[in-house]
């Protein structure tokens, strides 16, 4: 029982980590709290749904295409909303309000267009078989989620730590002006970061959609709350922190639902958030944003 719960928790946590990684990357580089990020989660799930249902694509192809589509949506939204906001003296607060308004408008537009009903992937999108190992059951969907999350997280980490492009992204995140003096095209890096983070958000939407087989326009909203918990606990802009905190949140939610009460799982997540902010405002692993200079 406990082993099964832990496996389910790790799987859920891997998607949280994936989603939060995109959010923390965007905040770390662009320095605004961009709530439209949650929309890329819903968008990714719906694009994958349309590709599997209407076009009849295999999920292995629909997933990367949905991620790419969400990434492009993020680039479009960010270039419409962020450049003006980032120049404001109170960029943090203004971006919170403007992107909140924008994301609510996007969700209701999507609901008006596609309806509020819960939709499901066509049967057979992913094999219903499950393997059982020492009493622990892992479905094919869960296997795909884990493999895709690990692959995407691994690729992103490799990009950031081993490539020249990753070095340029980290330079822009730390000191955009100095990065410009090095000859780095900072606006282009900003677009690229929007693309990458939107793609991670979209991929997260597809994977969660597969895991629970339930897709609806506002699914990005509850995910965004978790994204917040994860990146604040992990330290804003800290990628390693987001990974650890995402995994932990998934495990805690599943254990709470399994051993206490499923209606309490969100309460537990936010209680942790409050406790962390109370004692370590810089996050459990990260440094305070102000100290990142």
């Amino acid at each position, binding site marked *: 029982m406990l082993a099964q719960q832990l496996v389910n928790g790790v799987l859920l946590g891997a998607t949280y980590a994936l989603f939060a990684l995109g959010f923390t990357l965007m905040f770390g580089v662009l320095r605004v709290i961009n709530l439209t990020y949650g929309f890329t989660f819903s968008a990714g799930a719906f694009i994958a749904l349309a590709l599997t249902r209407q076009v009849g694509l295999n999920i292995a192809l629909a997933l990367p295409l949905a991620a790419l589509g969400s990434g492009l949506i993020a680039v479009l939204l960010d270039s419409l909303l962020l450049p003006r906001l980032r120049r404001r003296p109170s960029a943090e607060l203004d971006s919170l309000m403007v992107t909140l308004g924008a994301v609510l408008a996007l969700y209701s537009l999507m609901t008006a267009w596609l309806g509020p009903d819960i939709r499901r992937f066509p049967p057979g999108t992913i094999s219903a078989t499950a393997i059982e190992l020492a009493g622990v059951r892992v479905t094919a969907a869960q296997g795909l989620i884990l493999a895709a999350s690990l692959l995407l997280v691994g690729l992103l980490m490799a990009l950031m730590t081993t490539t*020249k492009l990753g070095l340029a992204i*980290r*330079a822009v995140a730390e000191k955009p*002006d*100095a990065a*410009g*003096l*090095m*000859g780095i095209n900072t606006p282009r890096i900003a677009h690229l970061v929007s693309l990458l983070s939107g793609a991670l958000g979209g991929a997260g939407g597809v994977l969660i959609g597969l895991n629970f087989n339930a897709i609806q326009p506002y699914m990005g909203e509850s995910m965004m709350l978790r994204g917040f918990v994860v990146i604040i606990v992990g330290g804003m802009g800290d990628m390693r922190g987001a990974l650890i905190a995402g995994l932990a949140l998934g495990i805690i939610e599943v254990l709470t639902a399994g051993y206490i009460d499923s209606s309490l799982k969100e309460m537990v997540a936010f209680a942790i958030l409050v406790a962390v902010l109370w004692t370590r405002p810089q996050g459990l692993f990260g440094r305070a944003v102000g100290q990142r200079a």
Partner: protein
Amino acid sequence: MAPALEISGLCVSYGRTEAVRGIDVSVQPGQVVCLIGANGAGKTSTMRAISGLAKIRQGQIRLNGTDITAWPAHRIAAQGLLQVPEGRQVFGELTVADNLALGAYLVSDRAEIAARQARVLQRFPRLRERLAQHAGSLSGGEQQMLAMGRALMGAPGVLLLDEPSMGLAPLFVDEIFAIIADLRREGTTILLVEQNASAALEVADQAYVLEQGRIVLSGTAADVAANEAVAAAYLGG
């Protein structure tokens, strides 16, 4: 010969604050030109405007005859004008080696990058044993050397130095000015901003004095150093 860098009628303002009010500065190839002035005179605003980081309200910047006014910063760097900004601005969360690599961001030839890094480490030997260290853990003087080394990795056609001696211990100040003198001997074109006027005037060919956003005096470094008003205001004599 066309000046390496020519600034004409430059104006920079922040809202209602006019930081730079129509200045003309010209730097000939191979010269070291210094810009001296008190706190708030508009030196950094001038440097940031040249590099494409501050908005130019009026005026023109030419680099080897090419009008680079209002170009984005990365394009100006690609054109060979590099800056060591005020306060060093090293990437503290990255290693010394990564900081140097970023200085050669526009170079793709690995052998060339390695050769430049070897030359930079020869010039700044104390960076060598700190290559794997985070730049944020270096002392102020070491960070200044890293910032200069980083700019030299880009093989600057024109090098801008904004107060390289600011906040450094006297020993480091001497070292920094010795390196500027070396660069001058090697023929590097430099625009140097300094509050340490006596050291700057010693190393420079030409000098400009900036007060409240205007040039109040200019000429050869020797003439400017000999000016009584300059001596009284900036040379402590």
